[in-house]
């Protein structure tokens, strides 16, 4: 590795960490193609690096978000039971549907969700609808609004079902479950966008942790590339959390909807 490639990789990590921490995603959608195309890395090494990056984004972002109570920790832990179960039974789904068919189904789903998010945002004049008659209450200070946002979680069973599905397909398709969980938390359960992204960011590290050791034991983790990317991602995550505090929720929703469109196109092309 040269000093130039080290700096490019570090910057790539910063960008991934910033976007990932802001939107509650692992950033694999961006990091894997970046590593494969720019660094000519074999796919398995790129995925292994991306998984470490997910853990870095989640750990650094959640450490800050937990302090500010943006993470709904009880909801996060509850949904983790569903995502980990989904991941365990990933093989069952693989027996019924090919990866090709799955990728096309979920690309369509992401496209639909993206349009729903944009439509709802426009219909509600960029204001979020908060429900106070649900369970697992949460509250956090929204710096962009300058007020404390209090909310509850609606339709927990439906959210658990989506999380199960997210865990199930994330392993099969190599995409982070956050891309499904954030819209589900926001649209189905009425969780404010900032609470949804922070809770998703908190969860993705645990989902990635088990598979990280598998890739490690198979020798796919390059220490130079892994460390450089992880350090970049750690720095980017701190930046991403700070940015997400300043950005208005409706702007966050727009950015998320655009990322969904990009991920959808990527899945179609896969």
């Amino acid at each position, binding site marked *: 590795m040269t000093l130039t490639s080290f700096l490019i990789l570090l910057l790539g990590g910063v960008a991934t960490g910033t976007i990932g921490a802001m939107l509650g995603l692992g950033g694999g959608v961006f990091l894997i193609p970046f590593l494969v195309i720019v660094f000519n890395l074999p796919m398995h090494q790129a995925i292994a690096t991306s998984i470490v990056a997910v853990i870095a984004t989640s750990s650094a972002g959640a*450490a800050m978000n937990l302090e500010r109570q943006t993470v709904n920790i009880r909801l996060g832990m509850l949904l983790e039971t569903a995502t980990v179960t989904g991941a365990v039974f990933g093989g069952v789904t693989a027996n019924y549907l090919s990866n090709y068919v799955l990728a096309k189904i979920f690309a369509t789903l992401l496209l639909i969700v993206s349009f729903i998010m944009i439509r709802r945002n426009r219909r509600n004049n960029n204001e979020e609808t908060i429900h106070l008659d649900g369970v697992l209450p949460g509250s956090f200070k929204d710096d962009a609004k300058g007020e404390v946002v209090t909310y509850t979680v609606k339709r927990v069973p439906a959210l658990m079902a989506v999380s199960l599905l997210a865990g199930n397909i994330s392993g099969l398709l190599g995409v982070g479950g956050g891309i499904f969980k954030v819209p589900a938390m926001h649209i189905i359960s009425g969780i404010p966008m900032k609470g949804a992204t922070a809770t998703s960011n908190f969860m993705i590290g645990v989902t990635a942790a088990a598979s990280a050791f598998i890739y490690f034991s198979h020798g796919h983790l390059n220490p130079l590339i892994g460390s450089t990317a992880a350090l970049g991602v750690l720095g980017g995550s701190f930046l991403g959390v700070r940015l997400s505090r300043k950005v208005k929720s409706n702007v966050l929703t727009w950015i998320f909807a655009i990322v969904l469109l990009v991920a959808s196109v990527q899945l179609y092309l896969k």
Partner: protein
Amino acid sequence: MTLPAHTVERWTSLSLKLGVWISGGLMVIGLVSAALQSFAISLPKDNPTLGALLRNVFSGSLDPVTTMFLGLVLLMLTPFLRVITALAGFAAEKDWKFVVVSLIVFLMLIGELVYSLYR
């Protein structure tokens, strides 16, 4: 004794910070050492086993590659530490329902790890 509010959030945040700073620090030391050798370090064909990594650490041979691997492994262990800390935090808050939920997550995580490594 009454615990301050949001004990579980504060403990969990602390465990994550601990993992991030220690692993990040080790990766920085490893990368700086590698950079001082113009990144001309020989990389092993396979990743070390956890046992081999610990043996290297305790024998005092902390070369750049071992230091970076150690940082990466500690980062990968951070989510496990976070689940255990959350479990302890919920227990301290006497929220038994979420003690059980955390325990389920932890056992599933360990189960998935063991199953995947040995299948």
